[in-house]
């Protein structure tokens, strides 16, 4: 059993906007933030992307200059929203610099910096330019190092990089560290930013949709890539909590052991992750009021996840994928979608999936295409990734 933890503060920046207010407004309006791809030098891919506005105009402070790259800029922008900075400072004052951990998910870190540096190789020697800093931009750990440095923290820090389940799995790791007494609080979440590797990579797998992605639609034809920073301050529950305080109740992890880039066709690993999350929360399927699906909108992913959800929950639990609104934010998706689940719990609504016009009748789940004014008490969020990695989280209201 997992000892419940409190999501005392959280914030997100995605193509829906900077911070919770525009994020909530877009979800309420079922607005999608996806737009035709005109990212960087990428002009040859007919696809839609979820780009965060303003990153190019938001350089890091000079004191953090060696961390300068799109991914850390996005992280920094995210930290400035919704009073998150101040909440972290107050946790540090309460617990100490060594007792606040940093556990963040990313899949590609600052790889865009390296992709651009390869274009600037010395024509004679092939050397990368002097202004390219590997440790603080390219290395997978750089975003956790960056956040640890921003707050002058001296405690445990790590990046979890399990592709698209990364920033869900950080909740499980942080919960273990707090339970073991290694730390008292953790900055968890994820940051993943647009880059050429993922755009051309998913294109090579023929998984990019030529239109804004349509999760669980009969005619779904691929995903739309997005980017996001999602941050949550996780700590033991305060002695008295507001009724709308959000708690992490359960986390379940599993592996498909099947294929590098295709899910288990029956969604067996996905089902095991959801079952493990229910078990650690001490809950039954009937206790879940809404499921935020992984729902990438590729034909095989949605079919496999749908089978697993139907096997466990039937068609009685309202479900949706919010990737039609945000795009697939890859290593940030688990964190971003946990925050969307937390907003649903606090504001009392179920987000309908954007862009989906005709729900696939072969997937027997209750897929929402419109918002519902129903106050969920417990939500489950799924995140699955390449390499057959699965993670499900369960969040609930304090009352």
């Amino acid at each position, binding site marked *: 059993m997992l000892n419940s933890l409190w999501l005392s503060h959280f914030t997100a920046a995605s193509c829906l906007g900077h911070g919770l207010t525009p994020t909530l407004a877009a979800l309420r309006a079922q607005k999608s933030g996806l737009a035709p791809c005109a990212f960087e030098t990428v002009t*040859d891919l007919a696809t839609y992307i979820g780009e965060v506005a303003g990153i190019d105009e938001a350089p890091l402070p000079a004191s953090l200059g060696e961390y300068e790259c799109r991914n850390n800029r996005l992280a920094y922008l995210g930290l400035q929203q919704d009073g998150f900075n101040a909440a972290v400072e107050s946790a540090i004052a309460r617990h100490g610099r*060594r007792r606040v951990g940093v556990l963040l998910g990313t*899949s590609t870190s600052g*790889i865009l910096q*390296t*992709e651009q540096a*390869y*274009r600037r*190789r010395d024509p004679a020697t*092939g*050397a*990368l330019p002097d202004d390219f800093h*590997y*440790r603080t931009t*390219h*290395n*997978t*750990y750089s975003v956790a*190092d960056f956040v*640890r440095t921003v707050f002058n923290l001296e405690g*445990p*820090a*790590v*990046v*979890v*990089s*399990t*592709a698209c389940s990364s920033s869900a*799995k950080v909740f*499980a*790791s942080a919960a*273990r*560290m707090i339970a*073991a*007494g*290694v730390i008292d609080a953790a900055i968890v979440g994820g940051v993943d930013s647009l880059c*050429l*590797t993922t755009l*051309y*990579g*998913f294109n*090579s*797998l023929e998984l990019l949709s030529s239109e804004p992605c349509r999760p669980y639609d009969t005619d779904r034809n691929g995903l739309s890539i997005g980017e996001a920073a999602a941050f949550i301050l996780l700590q033991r529950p305060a002695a008295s909590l507001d009724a709308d305080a959000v708690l992490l109740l359960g986390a379940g*992890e*599993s*592996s*498909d*052991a*099947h*294929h*590098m*880039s295709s899910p288990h066709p029956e969604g*067996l*690993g996905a089902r*095991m992750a959801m079952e493990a999350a229910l078990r650690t929360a001490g809950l039954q399927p009937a206790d879940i009021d809404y499921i935020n699906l992984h729902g990438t909108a590729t034909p095989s992913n949605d079919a496999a996840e749908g089978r697993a959800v139907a096997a466990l929950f039937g068609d009685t639990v309202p479900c949706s994928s919010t990737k039609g609104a945000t795009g697939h934010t890859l290593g940030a998706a688990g964190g971003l979608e946990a925050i969307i689940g937390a907003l649903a719990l606090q504001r009392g609504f179920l987000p309908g999936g954007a862009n989906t016009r005709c729900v696939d009748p072969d997937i027997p789940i209750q897929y929402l295409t419109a918002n519902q004014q129903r106050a969920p008490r417990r939500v489950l969020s799924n995140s699955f*990734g*390449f*390499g*057959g*990695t699965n993670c499900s989280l369960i969040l609930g209201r304090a009352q």
Partner: protein
Amino acid sequence: MKLTAYLDGIGLIGPGLDNWLAARPILAGTVPYKSRPLTVAAPQSLPPAERRRTGLAIKVALAVAQEAVAAGQLDARQLAAVFASSGADNDNCDALCKTLASEDRSISPTRFHNSVHNAPAGYWGIASGAMTPATVLCAHDGSFGAGLLEAMTQVAVEGWGTLLVTYDMPYPEPLHAKRPLPSAFGIALALMPERSAQSLARIELSLVDAPPDALAEPELEALRHAIPCARGLPLLQAVARGHASTVVLDYLAPLSLAITIEPEHRG
């Protein structure tokens, strides 16, 4: 805060360190260390289609994982896994960056799915059949320490048997000049919540301020210093020597990991 586990199996591969059994007397100081290039076989446990797609990082990770599981006489399908690496498949990373900087940006699907940091964990799942939780970590030069801390936390909190698999490989140029890693290397530890007949030692982890231990043998110390996952070597040396001791391993400044090793004396 102290975390405890039983060390039931070790996997090791590095230049001049073919496997744990061969390396044990070298680390104990009874056989001299001789450097030579690392060789590693393609993992026979993978189906041929997957085996063809494995680069050096995946081969090293699977070799040490398999060795640790076999040494502990364990069932891999029952073990959770923690993978930790500073970089993963660095040849693949270079090839992708070169293609993306060229006129034709078409990259191969295999190159793309092998680019994820968790590629070795994915191949391990396919090879072992383990559907258990597997996490994949990076903490730059502190990656061994971060992996050990996560694995020990899993054993202590979840009561899981957890296989820690740490591995690194060099970058080709031009990244090598920016991140010089001299050789591939891998260390795996099978960490269990209960003592068994295979237990080599009981180990206990705590966070401390002390500087990390160095190795007396200069060439081994150079490896420890230069390769993130080789920073676990002082722990292996203590196990190889076979007496109770405490070693300090690199983590993230200002923190190090103090590991107290109590050998299990069998039969």
